[in-house]
């Protein structure tokens, strides 16, 4: 049974660590569905959010192999229901007089913003769950998408009291 799992990994903020982690996935044929990296409040520590999928044994191996890497400080894993996940997407579309209103309506419904505009193009920004973002892309397929830039998934486990 294939399942999805989110790995929230804190690592030493050193050069080469991203390549070591991504190399591990390549070397052992683990999937990376999405990857996002950034600094944390501690400049010596980076946070990686990796979304992967596979059978239970593979998903367990991913966690163990990540823990084996000496630059990895901590690995937390959760499924989609145990965390809040967000992605950010910027999408440039071509518009014309006849569909401008329709686009603006869609943006309003989807809670997306128009952040830049020219005579024939506009840029839409959305920050939401990966599913909602996919939905927006699907909706715009009938209109003309020029280009898309999208971050990987960021996740944190849901707030519970006594969270360490």
């Amino acid at each position, binding site marked *: 049974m294939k399942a999805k799992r989110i790995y929230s990994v804190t690592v*030493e903020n050193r050069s*080469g660590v991203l*390549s*070591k982690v991504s*190399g*591990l996935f390549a*070397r052992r044929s683990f999937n990376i569905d999405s990857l996002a990296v950034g600094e944390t409040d501690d400049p010596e520590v980076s946070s990686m959010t990796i979304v992967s999928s596979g059978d239970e*044994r593979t998903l*367990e*191996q991913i966690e*163990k*192999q990540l*823990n*084996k*890497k*000496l*630059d*990895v*400080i901590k690995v937390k894993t959760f499924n989609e229901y145990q965390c809040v996940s967000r992605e950010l997407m910027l999408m440039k579309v071509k518009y014309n007089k006849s569909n401008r209103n329709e686009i603006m309506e869609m943006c309003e419904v989807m809670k997306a913003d128009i952040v830049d505009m020219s005579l024939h193009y506009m840029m839409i920004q959305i920050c939401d769950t990966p599913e909602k973002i996919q939905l927006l892309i699907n909706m715009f397929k009938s209109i003309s998408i020029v280009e898309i830039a999208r971050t990987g998934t960021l996740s944190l486990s849901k707030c519970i009291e006594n969270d360490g």
Partner: protein
Amino acid sequence: MIGAEAIIKCLEAEDVKYVFGYPGVAICPFYNSILESDIKTVLVRTEQSAAHAASGLARITGKPGVCAVTSGPGATNIITGVATAYADSIPLIVITGQVKTDLIGSDVFQEADITGAVESFVKYSYLVKKAEDLPRIFKEAFHIASSGRKGPVLIDIPIDVQNDNIKNFKYPESVNLRTYKPTVKGNASQIKKVIKELAKADKPIMCIGGGVQLGQADDEVIKFAEKHNIPMVTTMMGIGTIPTDHPLYFGMVGNNGKPYANKAMNESDCVMMVGARVADRAISQPDLITKDKVLIHIDVDPAEIGKNAVSSIPLVGDCEAIFEDLNKEDFSSDTSKWLKALEGFKKELKIVRKPNKKYVDPQNFIETLTDKLKDDAIYIADVGQNQIFSCAYAKIKKGKFLTSGGMGTMGYSIPASLGAKLAAPKRQVVCVCGDGSFQMSMCELATFVQHGVQAKIIVFNNNFLGMVREYQHYSYKDNYSMVSLDGSPDLEKLVKAYGFDYLRLKTAKGLSEIIDKFLEDKNNCLLEVMIDPMDLVK
């Protein structure tokens, strides 16, 4: 003090006696500074051998072996040796010279991204940016290499870092690594569960991997088995942990192992894997060892547990610490019926070889040789048919059996025997290889001569790459491709050119006398043993 001198101070602080390597410009500051030290340097003839020699030494001393090579091709040449050590969890410190820091990334002469290239073959690697970091990095590297699941650590040091001044050299007393704290003690409740399952089991068996010797847990493990009369089998890397004539020992498992050892594993109701990976060569169908039986898996590396087989009781920790705890527990078990059944399998599944009388039978040769070896002798097998014959027939008493089990690297035995002999000059060290593996490392004969290390090399000559030929015999109906070794040199002339003594054994006639002569020889000696080119290991 310059960086290079600091490195030597670090190695001295770690009580390093030998550095194996090959120089080049980028490692010259290091090899210049080492002249002031008591550490001895051993010049190998190709870099791969430096890693194998350091590995041979490490497997005898239990401490990391050290090698140092230059940048670029020196560094890339050592990768196979490093990968070989990694596959067998052998602790190594691999020092590579690197081009000047400000030239890194510009593809200058002899530049290679070695830390990138070895990433999947090392436990950890460093690219040193400042000379000041050297003491900390070396302290960490030795700690990482020799603790938890052991393995090679590579330190890449640009030439300017080796030449930079370092003000206050102080070798740290401890390491502070927030990301690395290997488990030593086994979880107490898991230990209780192990005891409970073993007490319930009618047909328990222990499968000993290389981890037991690496964790120096041999005595505790055997004590446990003897206390409860639990039979033992080993993987290839586990050979030598238990004396081969031990009444509880039932041979090596796996597709090249003893059929009765495999049957013992299959028939057992409780398998205790100790320091073994459950890899394909030992356990071809991991699902079978979990079917209808309890699998207890003890390993220092949590990632090994559940990787190839799902265990019923995982137990993570240092083998010695775990077995010290297990030995404190008491339970009663009666395995006499089970042991009797195993003795039955042994008789029923005994392989009877039909040797070709025109040649020397490897079984007869290895059994006679190892009978004559001293109790603490070190037997080093290469890779190929010679390895499988050695695994099957070598009798190991209190000595060691070294081979490249995980990676199966041909050419391992000659440089490994060089390292082993340096580690234990008073012990008998015998290296057994085939004519293929010999030719992969024959350049190292000069290394023995140059450094006054005694070489005792046995070459099984069948004029074939026997293991592949055997595979082509079974899988390609004798359609041989790339396996003939025609063109091989006259070994007598070759080794005599290096000042070696030479002996040859053509048939069983005079076998015992020639082996005596070989073992008694005070000089370097190569014994060529003619074996049947069409012989099969199974």
